[in-house]
């Protein structure tokens, strides 16, 4: 069971479609799905890993099976500007107290937006084949590009 980069949350703990298949008489009326188990007052002030997400919330599911390229994150270069966190369309950049922690590979679809918006030189995020080894990618990370003088 994966516990994500935070090591404590229920992010991506199951495969999509692994929920119990009940009969027509037990499905919810109008396909209404609860986001959380029970009453969820004050949910906006709780961190994701503290929320009791329901089995029908995609937070707990792995929904990235069709990704073919992935971003690899390089902590040594990152300046924690949070640009990638702001732009990611799938909230798959994990950040706490304005510090980047890494990529949520259970929800990232590999769109590459985070790489596009990364302002460092060299970039702190680069796209690699889904099959690539992250450690090897980090070992071969490109050097800083020098500005060409006119």
């Amino acid at each position, binding site marked *: 069971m994966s516990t994500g980069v935070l090591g404590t949350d229920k992010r991506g703990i199951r495969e999509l479609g692994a929920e119990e298949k*009940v*009969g027509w008489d037990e499905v919810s009326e*109008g*396909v209404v*799905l*609860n*986001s959380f188990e029970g009453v969820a*007052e004050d949910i906006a002030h709780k961190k994701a890993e503290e929320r009791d997400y329901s089995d029908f919330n995609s937070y707990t599911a792995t929904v990235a099976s069709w990704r073919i390229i992935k971003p690899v994150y390089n902590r040594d270069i990152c300046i924690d500007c949070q640009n990638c966190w702001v732009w990611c369309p799938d909230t798959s950049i994990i950040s706490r107290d304005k510090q980047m922690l890494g990529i949520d590979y259970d929800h990232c679809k590999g769109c590459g937006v985070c790489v596009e918006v990364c302002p460092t030189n060299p970039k702190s995020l680069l796209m690699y084949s889904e099959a690539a080894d992250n450690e090897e990618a980090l070992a071969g990370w490109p050097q800083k590009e020098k500005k060409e003088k006119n």
Partner: protein
Amino acid sequence: MAKEFELNEVEVWDGNYAASQALRQAQIDVVAAYPITPSTPIVENYGAYIANGYVDGEFVMVESEHGAMSGCVGASAAGGRVATATSSQGFALMTEVLYQASGMRLPIVLTVVNRALASPLNVRGDHSDMYLGRDSGWIQIDAYDAQEAYDLALCAFRIGEHLDVRLPVMMHQDGFTTSHKAQNVYPLKDEVAYKFVGDYVPVNDMLDFSRPVTHGAQTEEDWHYEHKAKQHKALMDSRSVIDEVFADFKALTGREYKRVESYMMEDAEVALVLLGSSVETAVLAAKQLREEEGIKVGIVSPRCFRPFPYDLIRETLDTSSLKVVSCLDKSAPGGAMGALFNEVSAAAYTTQARPMMTNYIYGLGGRDFAVDEAKRIMREQKAHADAGHITTPIQQFSGLRGPKLGFFETRRS
């Protein structure tokens, strides 16, 4: 707080005005609407009630009927009482969202003023739009005059919002012949009408922040089928709630409605099955024909078009005297027998009587359907009964200029 609208014991209202008054009395939270002939006055009047302080809810003017029904879906999912009105092309544009509304089990009330579908463009009444909605998962109830438009619009809220139902409801009336025909209407006082409709009880409302919910989820082959089955079950089971609401309405007003209306069926040898304002015409023709020529004609009308009253149609047609049933469809059948013919025939097939079944297409684009034509059709059915077989094509066009148009002979060896 909405002002009370002073009403006389008897008012002279047309079908549109009657429907709009019922919407006002239901104190709807959100009406999202786009005008189209002949239902425009419903939302126009409703806008005036809002402007003049007779309604507390919101009126949202949208860019199209697709937007109108989408706004209704959003407002209903948010947890409000919601309604709108439309006709014809507007109904067609709403169609995609109609399926969303029923699948999401949102009890929206849609007052439809039936009108033909283009092409050719036509603003007059036929049942093309009503038929277009018949697989959409909505409850469909048909009003034949202005009083019924008022009464059934009130009932529509009670039925759809019932916690055992939670399905959207269309309340139909015929374009112009009902929507624009003024007649005496006996309205309820505001307080009485609202008490009948009752307070709206939200279910899984999105504005309940303590229980965040997802509406309109995607399901593929592993869940979709179960959800559609459950939805169909709710629609089928709504029959008993409809009966219950009609019974309550009768207790309150003395006016009785049934899922299947029938007239003079006790000893009928010949029956006509039809919908809408034509029912009155057919009843009048049947009475005259009984007196003038002794032909025993009965009239049957599935006031509740969806869920289709298979049970009551079968019951109504299962008499020993009945020999021929003719179903009259006021919608271009598009390369098939009329829908009413197909559905009533399926129910009749399971009766002991097993009457002969014929089909007429009539009244398309507002073509008048008069007593004389109704009588002609009835006499033709009597001739089948006397001959012991169908003597004409099974499907015929009534009131059509040019050579007779009909399809399929009975096979007899």
